[in-house]
Structure formats: structure tokens, C-alpha cells
């Protein structure tokens, strides 16, 4: 999977490249609109992560160029602005998603994965991890071919953990993923804990292995034992 990160801040860019390279993505960078245009002229990407405030222009201008050149690529906008108007403008111009700074790396990863899956022509809606099978069209989860009943939150949680497998996912990011801005940090952590507990129980009851490890209360990691 090829990703292009269009971001002018060096530190942030470095973090992004480091993290996503480890995930196995092929990552490229651009720090200005001009650089970004160069890149898309040379390569094809599966997803572009686009910051709006660039030194030589607005990220939306770059979006317009993508549109005018009829380049079909997933775009997720990173913005400092949670302004609804900007968000709509971005989506209107063809962006697939919008994430406000500061964001969680695991959340960004989850969104990128979703966009890529959606964009894949005739792509399968099945996600498999050993004995766990998730059908994202039917919103069904099977363990050893047995259907298990998960609540919406538990389903979202499982998908999020699997998308971010082998990486530590913080409670903060889970809380924000499940409840967005509604929850205050400390109050939501109990809820995160109970949802994880319930999910583990349901997976185990269907004969599934325990892939969800807790890390000193900081977060969780979904991985093979």
C-alpha cells in the first residue's frame, strides 16, 4: 500500500513516516503543494494524507488539482480547523475523510484502512484474523464459523483493534474512536475497560483465543500470543 503524506511540519511528518512504515506501508512525503503535485504526477497512491495549512497554499487547492486531473485516490484531510464549513468543503472537493489535529496515530491508521478498503474495486468485505472473521458489509463477526452477537460498540472496538494489530492502542484513542468528543477522558476509561472485558469474554466463549492484551492500564494490543 502506497501512502503520500502532505504535511509541512517536520516533526509531525517524521512521526507519521516512522509509524506507518512500521505498519508495512510504502510511505512518501511532500511538504508543499508544489511537491505534492510533483509526486502525484510521478506515482500512484492508495491514500493521501493531506494537511490543509501548507506554506505555499491551501491543501484544498491541491484537492482541486486532483479532481481536475481525475486522479482517483483516497484522501484524508488533516486539519487544525474543526470548522464544519471547511469539513464540508473538503468533502465536497472529493476528500474521503477529515481528521482534526491532534489526532491519534491508531485513529488515522484505522481511517486510512477504511478508505483503502472502500476504494478497492470489487474488494472483499471480509477481514480475517486466524479464527476470527468479520464481514463488514453484513456487520457480522464469526469465530470458528460461529456467529457471535456483539453490540455496535464491541464491533467497532474489535475492528479498531484488528486494524491496529501488533501496535499498542491507547485507552484515549479507543475512547475517542468509540465516543468521539462526547466523553471526557477520565470518565470514559472505565467504559473502555468494560467494553474490552465484554469483547474478550464473547470471543473466548466462542472458542476464540485471547488476542487482546492489556498494558498496565495504558492501552491494549491485539496480537498473536
Amino acid at each position: 500500500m502506497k501512502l503520500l503524506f502532505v504535511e509541512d511540519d517536520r516533526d509531525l511528518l517524521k512521526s507519521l513516516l516512522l509509524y506507518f512504515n512500521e505498519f508495512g506501508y510504502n510511505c512518501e512525503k511532500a511538504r508543499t503543494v508544489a511537491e505534492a503535485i510533483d509526486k502525484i504526477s510521478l506515482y500512484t497512491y492508495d491514500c493521501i494524507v493531506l494537511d490543509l495549512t501548507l506554506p505555499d497554499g491551501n491543501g484544498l487547492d491541491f484537492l482541486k488539482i486532483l479532481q481536475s486531473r481525475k486522479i482517483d485516490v483516497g484522501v484524508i484531510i488533516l486539519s487544525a480547523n474543526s470548522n464544519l464549513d471547511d469539513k464540508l468543503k473538503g468533502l465536497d472537493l472529493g476528500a474521503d475523510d477529515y481528521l482534526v489535529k491532534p489526532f491519534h496515530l491508531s485513529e488515522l491508521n484505522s481511517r486510512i484502512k477504511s478508505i483503502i478498503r472502500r476504494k478497492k474495486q470489487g474488494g472483499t468485505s471480509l477481514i480475517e484474523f486466524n479464527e476470527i472473521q468479520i464481514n463488514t458489509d453484513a456487520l457480522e463477526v464469526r469465530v470458528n464459523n460461529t456467529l457471535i452477537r456483539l453490540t455496535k460498540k464491541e464491533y467497532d472496538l474489535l475492528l479498531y483493534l484488528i486494524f491496529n494489530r501488533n501496535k499498542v492502542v491507547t485507552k484515549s484513542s479507543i475512547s475517542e474512536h468509540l465516543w468521539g468528543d462526547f466523553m471526557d477522558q477520565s470518565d470514559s476509561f472505565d467504559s473502555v475497560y468494560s467494553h474490552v472485558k465484554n469483547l474478550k469474554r464473547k470471543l473466548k466463549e466462542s472458542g476464540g483465543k485471547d488476542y487482546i492484551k492489556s498494558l498496565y492500564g495504558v492501552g491494549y494490543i491485539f496480537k498473536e500470543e
Partner: protein
Amino acid sequence: MKLFTKTALIYGIMLLLTIGIVVTIYLILSADKESTNERSLFIFLIASLIGLVLLSLTQLIIIRKLWSPFYTTLNQLQNPNLEGKKIAVENTTIKEFKALNEALNEFSTRTHEDYLSQKQYAENLSHELLTPLAIIRTKSELLLQMPNLTEEAMLNLDSIIKTVGRLTKVNQALILLSKINNNIFVDKEDIDLKELINESLENFEDQIRKKKLTVRVELEQSVIINSNMNLLRILISNLIKNAVFHNIQEGFIMISLKDHEMIITNSGAPSTKSTDEFFQRFVSEQASENSIGLGLSIIKRICLLFDFPIHYSIENKEHKISIRFKH
């Protein structure tokens, strides 16, 4: 024309007129040879008095009229909603009033520009914080991925991550407040309050269940108000969030909506500060992990913007907020 000159001129004319009237009456009387000295003197006296009274009255009316540009300006200045508006002045030929109006206009323009740039400044600063916050968060999350981290290292990272979370929330609130001040939320539409309340309650379903809260709702059929959807949603959401998060285990929440007045009553920990202080200040009850101060600031600001009277009281560990949504 100078104020003094005009006043003097008017007084002069009035004086001449009065003298003219008095003299005329005197002449009329003296023409009448049969009248006695005493009688004519008396009539003369009366005439003079009437003349003086008329003179005074007319002077009062004229001075009033003369000063009207001044009173217009004064009224404008006393208007509490003067924020950033230009002072509408009455056209006048009097030099001093003209000068006053010009000076005031210049002053108000300058103040307004300062005000605007400060508002912009506040919002810009908040935005400047976002990328650094993103950097701290992402670096911390990267560190978390390192193998063989000790428990101590993890807990320290956890603390950093949680603190970034808090900073983010505070910054978000600041950005929201400065946007409200910058009049970004101008669109208005018909909003069903009942729907918003139910929507919010649904969002906090998990927490409500977790704390085993009893929620009682008495909502009048569709209360519709014409206002900004975004802000109203934030308002209701913050109100209910506070009622849920600052509640005790197995506590209660009572929401009533009648005659465009919404009252939320909930159980909660007793407050050690006085009601008003608690409401006024940004500082929250416990070590600001719970952002009740932020939430209340936002609630208050939105109510102020739309002129919704809001009252807050704590009695016997029961918190009560009432808001009147005027049509």
C-alpha cells in the same frame, strides 16, 4: 458656528423680541390718555412678567433643540451594545458638537479594530497549539510501541498522553469560545429542543447505564425555537454531559421542558465553593480532570449570545440549572 455664539445670538434675539413686546405694550398704554399711572404701571408689570416667562420657556425649548445633537451622541455612548458599532450622529453645524462626533467616531473605529485583532489573535494562538499537541501525542504513541518498556516508562507515557488529552479539550473549548465571539455561528433554523435532548441522552447512554442513573424526562410536545443548530446542540450536550459525569453512582437526573423553559436537576457531589463562584470561574471542582469549568463557560457563553436567562443553584447536593429559551 460656536456653541457660545449661537446661544448668545439666540438670547440676543429673544431679548430684543421681549423688549420689543414690552415697549409695544408701553406705547399702547401711553397712547391711551385716560389710563392712570398706577394702572398702566401694573399692566406694564404684568406684560413684562409674561414677556419674561415666554422668553424663558422659549429659551428652554431652543436650548434643548440646540443641544439635541449632543444628547443623541450621549445616548449612543450609553448604549451597552456599542461593541464595535459606529456611533450614529446627528448632523450639526455647531463646531464643538461636530468635533465631539468626529473624535468619538475615530475612537470607536480604533477600539473596534483593536477588538477585532484581539479576537483574531486569540483564535490564531489556539490554532498554533494544535500541531505541537499533535507532535507530542504522536511521539508519545510511537514511544509506546517500543519493545521492552518497563511498567514505569509506560505509566509515565500514559500520564503524558492523558495530559495531552486534557490540553486538547481545553484548547478546543478556547477555539469554540473565540469562534462564538467572532460570530461564526450565524445561521439560524427551526430546532426541536425535545429532539436535541433525546439525542444527547442517547449519546451518554453508556455512561448513564454504567453509573446506574435514574433519568426522568418530562418534555412538552415539540418545543421549537429558531436558533443556531451547532451551538444549541453543543449547549444541550454540555448540560447533559455535566449532569451525567458529575453525578454519583445510582444518582438521578430530572429534565423538564415546559413553556420554553428547560430545567435539569441532578444529584451530585456537594460543592465546596459558593454557587456563583463555581459558575463564574473557569476553575473546576476537583483537579481539573473533569472539565466542568470548561463546560460551564461554554454553556454560559452560548446563553449570553442568545440572551437566554440561565440560573444555577445547588441545594442539598442537588444541582439545578434552568434556562429559558425565549422565542
